[in-house]
């Protein structure tokens, strides 16, 4: 009798699957319009929103057709632009011009235009988190100028602009001149009462057809509204404190006016120690850095320990300078991008309840100490400068 049950359930299974035409969520690959990037703009006259999506045309990037080069096929992507009042409605409206339903999980970047960001973007981010199709590992970028134009950039190494921009953002770790902000980082900061979101800035450089995307600098928000920007050095100062430095080059002089030394950052980590004494708040930022010498452009003999120590100190000073610049800018803008507020909250949960309401007044004049412990390991393959040896 046991077996009858098995047979019955197997039969019921097959019957159910076959009869219930269960194709509710079925989408064959050739019914998808794969979105690789999206740009949000604000049309000038209205309070509507303009959305541009970049959609991949898979048939045009077939590996077999690549031998003929770009001449034969049309471009492997196209951009759709639509204007409307609400985000989701506008996206759905795109099916009026696109034969396939937009497919979001492979979206790589969200570009938001400067003026839209100034108005506040919380209401738009909600959709990108809430929708089951959307993923949190999307890069957020702020464009100077129209976001839509960025998606029309001509890619060099990849075939899709959005994917190339995502690669550029990832590659920015080599200089650490731009933060890599995913939707997850961004929304975590949006959810914090004091910590403000940031995003890298993207702009187009070059003329005419040869326009290239360029990612550098940081757009700084207050809550969800864009309030200012950090330049490249300030950005790195911010990344030191955020502990997100991956690599980068520090230029320091060791002989006044005679040329610089380039030092490569190998690894770095940070510690933020808030302290409250008698109601007085101070933040100590401790940075530990390790670097190598990669390029010497002067003739100072660095094989002497004293000279090497001096270089090390200058490196530390340069790092501290970067951090100071970032702190100064953030305090000017009165936006806590470093998460100092949250770090106080974590250490002094009781006192924080009193501090929180007046954090905005406290932050611009917050006392900060920067302690940099920089190390310099290798001089590379040379121990002495590439200059004729001086007779002693």
């Amino acid at each position, binding site marked *: *009798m046991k077996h009858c049950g098995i047979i019955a359930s197997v039969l019921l299974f097959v019957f159910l699957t076959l009869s219930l035409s269960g194709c509710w969520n079925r989408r064959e690959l050739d019914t998808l319009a794969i979105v690789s990037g999206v740009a949000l703009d604000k049309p000038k006259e209205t309070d509507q929103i303009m959305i541009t999506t970049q959609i991949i045309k898979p048939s045009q990037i077939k590996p077999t057709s690549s031998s003929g080069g770009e001449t034969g096929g049309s471009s492997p992507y196209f951009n759709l632009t639509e204007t409307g009042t609400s985000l989701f409605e506008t996206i759905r409206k795109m099916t009026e011009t696109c034969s396939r339903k937009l497919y979001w999980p492979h979206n790589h970047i969200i570009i938001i235009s400067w003026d839209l960001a100034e108005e506040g973007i919380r209401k738009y981010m909600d959709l990108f988190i809430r929708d089951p199709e959307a993923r949190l590992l999307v890069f957020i970028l702020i464009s100077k100028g129209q976001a839509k134009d960025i998606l029309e950039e001509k890619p060099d190494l990849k075939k899709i602009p959005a994917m190339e921009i995502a690669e550029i953002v990832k590659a920015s770790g080599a200089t650490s001149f731009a933060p890599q902000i995913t939707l*997850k980082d961004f929304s975590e900061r949006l959810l914090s009462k004091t910590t403000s979101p940031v995003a890298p800035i993207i702009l187009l450089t070059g003329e005419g057809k040869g326009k290239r995307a360029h990612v550098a600098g940081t757009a700084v928000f207050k809550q969800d509204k864009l309030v200012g920007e950090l330049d490249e050095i300030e950005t790195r100062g911010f990344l030191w404190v955020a502990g997100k430095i991956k690599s980068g080059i520090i230029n320091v002089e060791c002989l006044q006016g005679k040329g610089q030394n380039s030092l490569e950052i190998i690894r770095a980590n940070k510690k933020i120690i808030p302290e409250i004494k008698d109601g007085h708040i101070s933040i100590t930022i401790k940075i530990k850095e390790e670097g190598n010498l990669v390029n010497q452009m002067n003739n100072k003999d660095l094989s002497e320990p004293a000279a090497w120590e001096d270089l090390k100190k200058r490196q530390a000073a340069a790092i501290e300078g970067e951090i100071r610049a970032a702190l100064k800018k953030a305090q000017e803008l009165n936006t806590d991008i470093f998460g100092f507020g949250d770090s106080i909250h974590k250490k002094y949960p009781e006192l924080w309840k009193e501090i929180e309401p007046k954090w905005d007044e406290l932050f611009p004049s917050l006392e900060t100490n920067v302690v940099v412990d920089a190390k310099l390991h290798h001089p590379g393959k040379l121990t002495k400068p590439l200059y004729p040896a001086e007779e002693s």
Partner: protein
Amino acid sequence: MKLESGKISGSQLIFLAMGFIFGTSDIVIPVQAARQMGWLTVLSGALEALVFAAIFTALAMRFRGKTLIEFNDMIYGALFGKIISLLYIWYFLHLASLNMKFINDFFMAIIYPETPLVVLMIFLTLICASAVRNGLEVIARCSVLLTIFTIFFYIADTLMLLKESDVSNLLPFMGISWRAFLLSSHRAATLPFGETVVFIMIFAFLNKHTEAKKINLAIILAAIAVSMVTARNTAVLGNLTYIVTYPSFMALRQINIGEILNRMELTVTIMFLSMAFVKISLLYYTTALGIAQLFHLRSYLPLVLPLGAIIIALGMINFDNTIQDIYFSANFYPIYCLPFQIGFPLLSLIIAVIRGIPKKEP
């Protein structure tokens, strides 16, 4: 003829109970209100549940080889015993349908927004029904494999998420009020852990009745695992943990190791489904067995498919929407379940001790 001739061993009980606890703990996290302290409220909730479990095991020791339904009659007499048994059967059935709803809601929210809920429910119910028809031994064997598999994934996923997690997200320590903390740990105690009251029906089928005590070990081990997962989710998601519907799922979406090991949310869906299978099968089984014992039927097999239909129907009408069921499990359930998890068992134990039943055989 005996309704269930199978026997399970102590170690099978451990895995069965762990799987049972994992069944909902990861899908419905009632400890979100505790924010950073979620992981600790899980542990303190488990401590509270250990008190419950002490009562369950005391009952099991007193009434060797008797299930809840059988000893209710001995304690309360035929009429009241039957009423209480009926209430319990309702509770198990209701729990089964709730879990059925939770798991299929999850699938609908994440992958199949356009698929009718009832289709997913029918498939899962059929599988559970086939397990129930095969009896306790088969459910126990399945649960051992599935639980080991789940624990393996808990650990593997946590290791893969180490890179993404930021331990400072777990701070501040005790940043919430005591009231919120206690409330939250009570929720944890009742939602996954206290539901082990269902094992009063299972203890009777142990090889050695003393092994019933192993339920404590299961609760402790499961609490450690659930706490680890909760802590991991908070560490990975930070503030987001408290607003997303399925934190584990969201956390695993963050895995990205060398662009190859990513999109591991599939493992979450596997774990959720297999653990929900264990939980629903066990509840389903106890319901069927309970009814058969209550009405002195010769076999529970004819009950299986009708009960499945009831579970589906109940699951469909339980809640209108997900918001309701989240609200229910966080605010109403911790009170609703109290008589079943602690009230009746404690009362039974007291009456049994006072009246000195079961009478010692000479």
